[in-house]
Each structure stands twice: as structure tokens, then as C-alpha cells.
């Protein structure tokens, strides 16, 4: 009985306490995707932007192509590591369906991108493809797969925004092969990375707005 000697709460104080604890719980467990999408926006905008600017079709490429390639690789490794950390942080200490769903979703990315890499490498080896076709193969397939995985995420979590974003990235995949090289890098950077940025900002605004004042009802 030692710990029931608290001040009696008024209804307003009680609602306040609910709102504050809700905010805290949601911030830690829900960990909205705004920041994660922001990291990916940065990766795509900067990484693919540099590849575009480094393309030798330009009169004065910004840097050698291989340098831009290394920058992209490093940015992707960092973003993937952050994604894994983000997923782990959310599901720490949680057991049950949502943890399982999250883990399966994370592995879906790993498995399908590993297969995509294998298939594309094999196609590159088998066919006599010129560098432009190879470039389109990679940008087209990886945008398609990225988009499809976001479509799946939208279905899993019944999130229209995520679904819409997935559809946009799928469309970008189609556009990237239509515009050719080096326009496909511009599609990756501005349309793809820009899409991530818009999605990140929308989630950010949403998290702000639905923050401390509302009692969540999930």
C-alpha cells in the first residue's frame, strides 16, 4: 500500500498524464519513419546526384565516375546500417506479431536485393551489354524492387502514404529507363531521393501534429 499515497489527480491532470506517457511511448515504440526516410533521402539525393554530375557525357564531369561510385557505396552502407539500427531499436523488448512482421519485412529487403544483384550480374555477364544498357538495367530494377517493397510495407501497416510512395518509386523505375543515361541518375536523385524527402517531411509534420495533445487509440 506504500505507493498509493499519491496526490489525487483531477480529470484534467489525468488526461495530461495520459497524453505525456502516450507521447513518450509512441516516440520510443512507434519511432516514426521521418528520420529514417530522411537518411535515405540524403543518400539518394547526394549519392545519385554525384553520379549524375560525374557522368562523362558532361563537358566537365564533377569528379571521376569511380569516386562517385565509392561515395554512393559508402552512403548506402551507412543508410542500411542505420535502417537496421532503427528496426532493432523499435522492436527491442517487444514480442509478438509486430516484431515478427518487422523482422520479416527487414529480411525481405535483404533477400530480394541479394537476388536482384545476382540476377543483374549474371545478365551483365551473359549478354554483351553496352555500359548504358547496364546502367539502365540497374536503375530500373532497383527502383522497381524498392517501390514494390514500399508497396508491401504500405499493405502490411495499412499506411496509404507508404503505399503511395511505393507507387511513385515504381513509376520512377519506369521513367528511369525511358529517359536513358545519364538522365536515369537524375531520376534516381531528384524523383527518387526527392520522393523520400517529401515522404519524410509529411511524416515529420504528422508526428508533430498528432503529438502530445491527442490520446492515441490503437
Amino acid at each position: 500500500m506504500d505507493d498509493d499515497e499519491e496526490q489525487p489527480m483531477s480529470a484534467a491532470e489525468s488526461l495530461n498524464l495520459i497524453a505525456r506517457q502516450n507521447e513518450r511511448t509512441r516516440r520510443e515504440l512507434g519511432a516514426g519513419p521521418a528520420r529514417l526516410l530522411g537518411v535515405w533521402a540524403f543518400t539518394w539525393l547526394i549519392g545519385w546526384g554525384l553520379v549524375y554530375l560525374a557522368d562523362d557525357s558532361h563537358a566537365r564531369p564533377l569528379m571521376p565516375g569511380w569516386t562517385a561510385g565509392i561515395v554512393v557505396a559508402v552512403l548506402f552502407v551507412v543508410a542500411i546500417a542505420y535502417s537496421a539500427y532503427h528496426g532493432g531499436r523499435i522492436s527491442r523488448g517487444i514480442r509478438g506479431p509486430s516484431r515478427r512482421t518487422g523482422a520479416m519485412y527487414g529480411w525481405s529487403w535483404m533477400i530480394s536485393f541479394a537476388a536482384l544483384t545476382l540476377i543483374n550480374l549474371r545478365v551483365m555477364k551473359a549478354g554483351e551489354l553496352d555500359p548504358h544498357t547496364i546502367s539502365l538495367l540497374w536503375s530500373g530494377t532497383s527502383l522497381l524492387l524498392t517501390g514494390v517493397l514500399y508497396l508491401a510495407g504500405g499493405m502490411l501497416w495499412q499506411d496509404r502514404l507508404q503505399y503511395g510512395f511505393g507507387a511513385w518509386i515504381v513509376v520512377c523505375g519506369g521513367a528511369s529507363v525511358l529517359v536513358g543515361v545519364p538522365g536515369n541518375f537524375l531520376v534516381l536523385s531528384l524523383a527518387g531521393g526527392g520522393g523520400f524527402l517529401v515522404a519524410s517531411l509529411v511524416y515529420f509534420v504528422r508526428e508533430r501534429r498528432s503529438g502530445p495533445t491527442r490520446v492515441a487509440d490503437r
Partner: protein
Amino acid sequence: MTEASLPELDPVIHAQARLRVTVALAGLHHGDQITFPRLQQLLDMTAGNLSTHLRKLEDAEYVEITKAYEHRTPVTLVKLTAKGRAAFESYTTALHRLLDATGGN
């Protein structure tokens, strides 16, 4: 409005610490459980304090506590029961009615 028409607040939930425990557990998705240490961290409570309040919530059948083993390490898993969720919902409804009745103060 007469006193009698004012809703009663569930005494099991209407205490700061237990209210916060309930809110945190209600924030989980349906069917999910949370480990004791993670819940403790979400609430900034001492283990002893949290145990005490969890026991009271368990006595009211508002929470379900499961002991399990993961890789031979014992883990304590906590979740809100359907009864607990319903009680929390009627508690918040009651709060809103109280506020309306007292003119928002």
C-alpha cells in the same frame, strides 16, 4: 448536474503510476507483449515500484504477466488484457465526461 450522474473513476487505473503503466501497455499493438526491462525504461520506474503496480493490475486481471525462457534466460513479458483495454477505454471516456460536466476545468 448532480453528483450522482458524475462517472466513477476506476481506482485501479486512477493512480499516477498505474495509469502510466496502463497507457504504455495500451500503446502496444494488439497481441504484442513487452519485456519487463523495456517497460521499466519506458516508464522510468524502479523495478520494485513497477512490480508492485503490475501486481495490482494483474489482480484486477487488467494485465497478463508471462514468464518465459529465451536462450535459457528468463524473461518476464507483460501485456494488457482485453479486460484491461476495455477498462482503460471506459476510464478515458469517464474522464472526458467529468471534464465536460465540470466545464473543462
